[in-house]
């Protein structure tokens, strides 16, 4: 059990330990997610996206640090604030945007929506919108790996709000009892909707996990390299057959819980404090200091991203709505071998 790290920790992993290409990849992914989410918010207010929309802005280091530590054969299952995870996993963002629009070219052909992004080809087992409801499923994905004796491990991403649910505890308990290759990755952004963590969970989350007799560690979720390091350690442990591993990433969301959130439960000063620890700005600053990024490079990167996200919106706009005649598709899968 390692701890002590919070979002305030300044001393993270040293940047010169990482290949330049990887650092640029991290920066690009984080900035892309940021801009993608900003435009999602805009398209929501314009009535292009409907339902619930939960933006990931502020938490980008978690998705990018965690998912880049995995291999293609590994499985990912996550919660409903899932756009960042889907993008970091390499799912085509055009199809993610089309899903938010509810169009046929969306990842779930318009059946899922923002909270339910799935991609079989990327071993992405879904965004799940019942808090902690996907955690026992992750245990089962791990159980399958153990039975198949394949080399896949499962990463289950969930929020601090899930810790109060019984399914969190059942899933962790079974994963240890059955020695399944599952990495539990908790994105602790401090609030379950509008309720402060200290009002909802009786102990530090990583300590609760440690009580289930598995390695458990807390890391700075506002530092992509710190997250990457923590998850790499988890991957090494779990892939060796030593069972599940728990990582708690301390992070913060800048936007409301969803678009309808008036944010009565926190102050603007608090939001601004965390914006001062912005994960993208942190990496950008480190790369500039190390001589890996110029102002011109950065400007060019943002322009490129602007264009890429615009393409996503244009793609989604031009994709048709699903035909009403397909309403009943995908309820029951007919037997393939019948």
């Amino acid at each position, binding site marked *: 059990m390692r701890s002590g790290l919070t979002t305030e920790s300044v001393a993270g992993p040293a940047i010169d330990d990482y290949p330049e290409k990887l650092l640029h990849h991290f920066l690009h992914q984080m900035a892309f997610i940021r801009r993608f989410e900003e435009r999602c918010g805009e398209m929501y207010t314009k009535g292009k996206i409907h339902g619930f929309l939960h933006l990931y802005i502020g938490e980008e280091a978690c998705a990018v640090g965690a998912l880049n530590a995995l291999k293609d054969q590994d*499985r990912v*299952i996550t919660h409903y604030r899932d756009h960042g995870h889907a993008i970091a996993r390499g799912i085509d963002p055009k199809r993610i945007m089309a899903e938010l629009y509810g169009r046929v070219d*969306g*990842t*779930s*052909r*318009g*059946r*899922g929506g923002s909270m*339910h992004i*799935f*991609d*079989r080809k990327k071993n992405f*087992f*879904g965004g*799940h919108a*019942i808090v902690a*409801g*996907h*955690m*026992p*499923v*992750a*245990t*089962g*994905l*791990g*159980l*399958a*790996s153990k*039975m*198949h004796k394949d080399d896949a491990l*499962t990463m289950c991403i969930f929020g601090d709000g899930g810790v109060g649910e*019984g*399914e969190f505890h*059942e*899933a962790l*308990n*079974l994963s240890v*009892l059955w020695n399944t290759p599952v990495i539990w990755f908790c994105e602790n952004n401090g609030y379950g909707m509008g309720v402060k963590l200290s009002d909802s969970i009786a102990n530090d989350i990583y300590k609760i996990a440690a009580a289930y007799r598995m390695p458990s560690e807390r890391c700075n979720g506002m530092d992509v390299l710190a997250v990457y390091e923590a998850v790499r350690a988890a991957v090494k442990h779990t892939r060796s057959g030593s069972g599940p591993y728990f990582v708690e990433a301390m992070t913060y969301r800048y936007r409301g819980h969803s678009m309808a959130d008036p944010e009565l439960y926190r102050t603007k000063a608090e939001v601004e404090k965390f914006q001062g620890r912005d994960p993208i700005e942190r990496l950008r600053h480190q790369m500039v200091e190390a001589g890996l990024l110029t102002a011109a490079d950065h400007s060019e990167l943002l322009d490129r991203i602007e264009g890429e996200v615009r393409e996503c919106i244009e793609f989604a706009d031009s994709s048709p709505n699903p035909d009403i005649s397909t309403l009943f*598709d*995908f*309820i*029951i*899968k*007919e*037997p*393939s*071998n*019948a």
Partner: protein
Amino acid sequence: MPELRMRDALREALREELIRDERVFLMGEDIGAYGGSYAVTHGLLDEFGEARVMDTPISESGIVGAGVGAALAGLRPMVEIMTINFSLVAIDQIINNASKIHYMSGGQFNVPLVIRMASGGGSQLGATHSHSLEGMYAHFPGLRVVCPAFPADAKALLKRAFRDENPVIFIEHTALYSSRGEVPEDTDLILEFGVANTIREGCDVTIVGYSGSVHQALRAAVLLDKQEGISAEIIDLRTLRPLDMDAIVESVKRTNRAVVVEDDWKFGGFGGELSAQIMERAFDWLDAPVARVSGKDVPMPYNRNLEYAALPAEEDVVEAVLAMQ
């Protein structure tokens, strides 16, 4: 043909499927060393080992969720929930995950998971242990709901369940576990879902039932024949989802009368669905409103007399048939 008890027929199905498909494995509370709360899995641990017959902790949500995950990853798990009452603890996994992931993923993923559970009252187990919730499960699109009444059907339908690509809620009536019936030895024999069985032909009234209520209908039909000269046709639905409505409509068009029988509560029960669909599809062939015989709208009492009064009996079926003549 050998005569088997229902529990033995179910065990045969599990055995044969474990042998046939290496992706199949069983998990549940006390299904291994204990042999299963209703002794359905007795002996399977010894034969197939711990990797394929897994005893689990008392953790319904956890084990059903794990079953969903294993199914998503390509296995063919069967989870035994000791009784249908405990499935309420796992309802989030069954409804929010198992029944919907195929749809929510736009057809990319599917959940071939068999969930077996014992159902029904009549054993003085009180209000939390005597539910008949099959109608509730039938409410949800994305689930298969199977309710066999005879050992041979139970075996063939359970084998069919393991070949389905979707979550199957397989409901076994506790009062039928020891019932006997001839069961074909053919290990390839399966029964398709959604095919009702006309187990008694008649021309005066159609009685529709499933699981335990089929037996009430049969006893009622004998009484009606002997005492009243009324010839009742009995349809055993076998599966509630998919539902063989065509068979019911075809029969009602001949008999002009229908009685639906179920153990479940009447208010909002599956019998209401059957009744409504008969009205929708066979209204112009009816001589009387569709009659419903159901459990009474009370939490199941403990006292024997009260429990007897709360459950439907063949006399209720006879009465319902006589009232519509």
